[in-house]
């Protein structure tokens, strides 16, 4: 039984479909990369999986007793208001919130998880800085650390490499690979086709109206669309 499966999904805003006929499943330990051009509906799919919006038709099924508080999520954009007073540490710790249940404060192990993830992403030295005053890449690292804190079974990432410098993004891919090896399911949206093909076990390629491909990486590289897209090295499309 897949951990997460989507059946005949039709997604969109206010009744207008963006993508339709999406059917795929993700099993425990899979590493799924979602690729496709800008505006094809990748972020929309992720929001639907997370139940932030309802699909027009079809359904998202979770198996394995997957609960919302076992999910980690890195949004593509966070509409954080200007002037929001929040330190990096406060933002990262918010990722531990879902472990806590009704307990009003973080305990030692949760604080340690937050500290560890900040170290992993190299932002422990700016833990006390104001989130709003960081650079785009530093903000991205803070949100990644928050997502890692929230993850227990599955991690959904919407363009995690956006804004990261080459060294940081290589480290990020290694970090996620290590998590995946430890059994965490990964679903990642990425425009970095080289990295997608390198790390993923499965690929979902979304076209302008429907899914163009879903299957294992090996099948994707063998398919016509995979050869075209991967051959472009992520540029252009």
């Amino acid at each position, binding site marked *: 039984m897949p951990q997460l499966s989507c059946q005949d999904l039709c997604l969109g805003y206010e009744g207008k479909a963006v993508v339709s006929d999406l059917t795929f499943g993700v099993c425990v330990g899979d590493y799924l990369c979602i690729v496709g051009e800008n505006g094809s509906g990748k972020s929309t799919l992720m929001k639907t999986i997370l*139940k*932030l919006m309802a699909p027009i038709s079809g359904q998202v099924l979770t198996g394995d007793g997957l609960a919302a508080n076992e*999910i980690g999520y890195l949004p593509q954009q*966070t509409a954080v208001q200007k002037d*929001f*007073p929040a330190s990096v540490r*406060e933002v990262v710790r918010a990722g531990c919130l879902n472990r806590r249940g009704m307990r*009003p404060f973080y305990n030692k192990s949760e604080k340690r998880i937050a500290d560890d993830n900040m170290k992993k992403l190299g932002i422990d030295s700016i833990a*006390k800085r104001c989130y709003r005053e960081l650079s785009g890449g530093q903000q991205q690292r803070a949100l990644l650390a928050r997502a890692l804190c*929230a993850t227990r079974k599955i991690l959904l990432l919407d363009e995690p490499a956006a804004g990261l410098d080459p060294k940081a993004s290589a480290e990020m891919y290694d970090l996620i690979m290590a998590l995946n090896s430890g059994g965490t399911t990964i679903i990642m949206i990425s425009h970095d086709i080289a990295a997608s093909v390198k790390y993923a076990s499965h690929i979902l390629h979304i076209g302008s109206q429907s899914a163009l491909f879903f299957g294992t990486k090996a099948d994707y590289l063998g398919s016509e669309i995979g050869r075209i897209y991967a051959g472009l090295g992520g540029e252009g499309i």
Partner: protein
Amino acid sequence: MTTAMNQLTLYFQFPFVRYAMIVGVLIALCSSLLGVTLVLKRFSFIGDGLSHVAFGAIAIATALNLTNSFLLVLPVTIISAILLLRTGQNTKIKGDAAIAMISVGALAIGYLIMNLFAGSSNLAGDVCATLFGSTSILTLTMTEVWLCVILSALVIAVFVLFYHKIFSVTFDEDFATATGTNAKTYNLILAVIIAVIIVLAINLVGTLLIAALVVFPAMSAMRVFKSFKSVTICSVGVSVVCAALGILISILAGTPVGSTIVAADIAGFIIFSAFGFIMRR
């Protein structure tokens, strides 16, 4: 200076002055706790709308000759808060229009009812007192003081218990929802707390000046501090100090309590703005 001190000692021998001080400080504390969240979630205008609803409810309570208007005003305001929050979430423009309609409507109907039914000869004085809270803080009954203490304690307890969740929902509602925090519940809790704070604050500053009590301390603190915790603590401090100062000054100088407190809050905002400006140089 000594005469002022003597005068204050004299005044504080009256129980109603002590009550006013206790209630004033508690209300200032509660309203500033949620200031940051309300400002950032753009709920401050809902607060404004709600205060007008509360005015309408007070008018009805006066017309009905209710001895304890709390009993009517509190539920009406809480229900309106929940309704306003619902409409506000659906569609932005319609939500704004709905709030404007409800708040202005409640204001007009309230004044109409006061005119039609109020037996008091001093109508303008009554209306002015409700709008600006000029005297009601000095005429609190023992029940009102206790009610205020209990409600404040509840507000503070809820805030402390849900502090981290309120932060997370305010900072990034999508992430909070996606990772299993029920943002809707917390928005509901926020709405109820706003309603309670507004009903409490009517006693202190009247319905027109409540927004100032919520917004100014938070804005002052945000000039200088950068983390949620420090801003929250600082705005509580600023609010309490300004309220205490405002009440003392109004006793000594005979100025209206509500507007004096708001004036103190404005002064605090100017000082903190200047401080923040200097620190950034």
